[in-house]
């Protein structure tokens, strides 16, 4: 038996913690990519705003779109509800109202992480310190997953926590592809031949580089990366993997027939062939459609259960 309010809190806690984790991975993956580029290549940090869909909020708060203000906005900014610090605060706030169902040690980790990021808010802004801040966030989120994986009973509370993560993760993967990949494809052949470096950073943004190579046995190549991140059945951050897992978790919940049509429409979008995968704008548009389908799925979960 699970209270609707608690289901709602767990779902959003799952989403926010995943958002914090994904955003930290994204910022770090991007930072590593930029570090690999020769200083002669002009670098821009603005794609990070596009990926997280926060351009407008950013312009309302900051002037120049330089590295410092963008990274600060994505990691630390209290005015950005999706910043790592804000997302951790919200995850904690949601978990606070359902501490009775959430494993106590997992709560302690989230609480400690919250205390860390709120007192060291700006620690990740300078490049020199960034790795440490991001590591701390990723390590603690991994610990939460570890504790939950090994100690939480598999009941509806668990299902909602995981559903929130899966939907957030799928959404983030489509965003990375929509913006970063589409931009790369759009530029065609890069005369400076740094394309591989940039595809690597796409994979790194979703912590997929090592697994990409194990799964595909291919060198890093644009179309294969897109296919891997969208359709892999084995990579836990691919959109396909997340949607399949959503369907499995719904199997355990009552009244899931009300939600299934929305899962199907995400799958439909996912299986639609992208007319010309070399056309960046086209890829971006199809990622937008998947995101809309994911948002509709999320709304349906909330309206059915919460």
């Amino acid at each position: 038996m699970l209270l609707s309010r608690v289901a709602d809190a767990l779902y959003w806690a799952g989403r926010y913690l995943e958002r914090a984790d994904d955003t930290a991975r994204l910022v770090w993956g991007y930072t590593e990519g930029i570090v690999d580029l020769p200083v002669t290549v002009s670098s821009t940090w603005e794609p990070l705003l596009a990926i997280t869909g926060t351009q407008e909020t950013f312009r309302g708060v900051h002037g120049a779109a330089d590295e410092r203000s963008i990274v600060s906005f994505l990691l630390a900014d209290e005015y950005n509800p999706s910043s790592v610090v804000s997302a951790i605060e919200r995850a904690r706030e949601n978990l606070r109202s359902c501490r009775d169902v959430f494993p106590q040690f997992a709560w302690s980790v989230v609480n400690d992480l919250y205390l860390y990021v709120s007192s060291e808010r700006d620690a990740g802004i300078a490049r020199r310190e960034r790795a440490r801040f991001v590591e701390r966030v990723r390590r603690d989120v991994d610990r939460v997953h570890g504790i939950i994986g090994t100690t939480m009973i598999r009941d509806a509370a668990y299902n909602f926590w995981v559903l929130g993560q899966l939907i957030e993760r799928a959404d983030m993967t489509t965003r990375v592809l929509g913006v970063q990949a589409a931009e790369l494809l759009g530029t065609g052949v890069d005369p400076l031949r740094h394309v591989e470096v940039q595809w690597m950073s796409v994979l790194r943004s979703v912590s997929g580089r090592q697994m990409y190579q194990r799964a595909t046995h291919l060198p890093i190549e644009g179309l294969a990366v897109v296919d891997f991140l969208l359709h892999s059945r084995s990579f836990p951050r691919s959109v396909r993997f997340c949607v399949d897992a959503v369907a499995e978790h719904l199997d355990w919940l009552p009244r899931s027939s009300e939600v299934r049509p929305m899962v199907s429409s995400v799958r439909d979008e996912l299986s639609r062939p992208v007319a010309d995968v070399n056309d960046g704008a086209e890829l971006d548009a199809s990622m937008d459609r998947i995101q809309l389908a994911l948002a509709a799925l999320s709304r349906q979960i909330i309206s059915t259960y919460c």
Partner: protein
Amino acid sequence: MGITFTVYSDGQNIDRAWPFDVIPRLIDATEWRQVERGLVQRLRAINAFIDDIYNEQKVIADGVFPEELLAHSVNFRPQCRGVRPKFGVWAHICGSDLVRGADGVFYVLEDNLRVPSGVSYMLENRAISKRAFADLFQRYSVEPVDAYTDELQRLLLSLAPEASGPDPTVVVLTPGIYNSAYFEHAFLAQRMGVQLVEGSDLVVGDDDVVRMRTISGLRRVDVVYRRIDDLFLDPEAFLPDSMLGVPGLMRAWRAGNVAIANAPGAGVADDKVVYAWVPDLIRYYLGEEALLPNVPTYRCLYDDERAYVLDHLEELVVKPANESGGYGLLIGDRSTAEERARAAANIAADPRNWIAQPIIRLSTVSTLCGDTIEPRHVDLRPFILSGGSHYVTAGGLTRVALRKGSLVVNSSQGGGSKDTWIVAGGH
């Protein structure tokens, strides 16, 4: 350990860590058995009184308890007249505050019958000291306190209405995360494995049945352990603009479809004026003399007692009859003339609402203060469970006034706490 206590009106910083002193307080088991008997006796009489007050009112007819007191009681709830909770018990969970006087005797200072808190701190304090003093526990036989949550769960299950099935549903009703004792509400729900609900999670239908909103739809609730004050419990019956409560909860309770612990209205006996009558109530209902003494109490309602109080303000502690948490307290020998004048004016304005007691030299126990060990004043709050039978915690929550010389132990006024060890065979 994430234990916090919310201090109201302290700006943004609402969660404050709960200061814990590592040096345990020891009480001899033989002495504690006496205290337990006294507490059980007290609760039997108090519950008989509450049940009587909401029903026949024999205690008034027999001239033992003055009717005028009831008429002015802020905790008497006419909405509860005629209800007969199971076992005749209204105050299922009580936290009584005890102090040891200069004569070495434990006195009862007050009985918290509404939504007493602190039991989770007692349990967490023990968890900490078990880690810190694992070897000491080998040498002393310290009575365990962990059984509390099982006893509480057993009690709550026993309250379920006859009509509920063999597997009744118990919930803990909390005002939510901004309540000062939210940590405890979550802690108890978690230990008992029951749902922690907020008012908006519950709904009462036209059939006067309480249900909770779950992901599978509405599910019946049989027992509500509420941690919300009476007045916020049900906007239909009490404060109409309460956002915390459940509209219709009182209807369901009166219809016998749900048990509420503590019962609404139980606070009528949680009143520093009624307190003064408890020894009389024990005599009246049980035909026994009180095993645990009250602190002598002057009731400002009576002209002669009020005159005494006003003449001896410097030697007395003056307390409002219906405030908890140490707000509005006057400690005579530490007050300024101006504070005494204000207290006198308060008493004159509303005599029934004030009582006074001699200043008890609270006992002190060793407390770690920086690098040294110094004496600090303490009190003790054991918890008493009442239903078909009774249970008293082995010890309770020892609260300590951390400021040197201070007698105020309340957590909202800078107090801390200690683990309390009931130790067999002297120490």
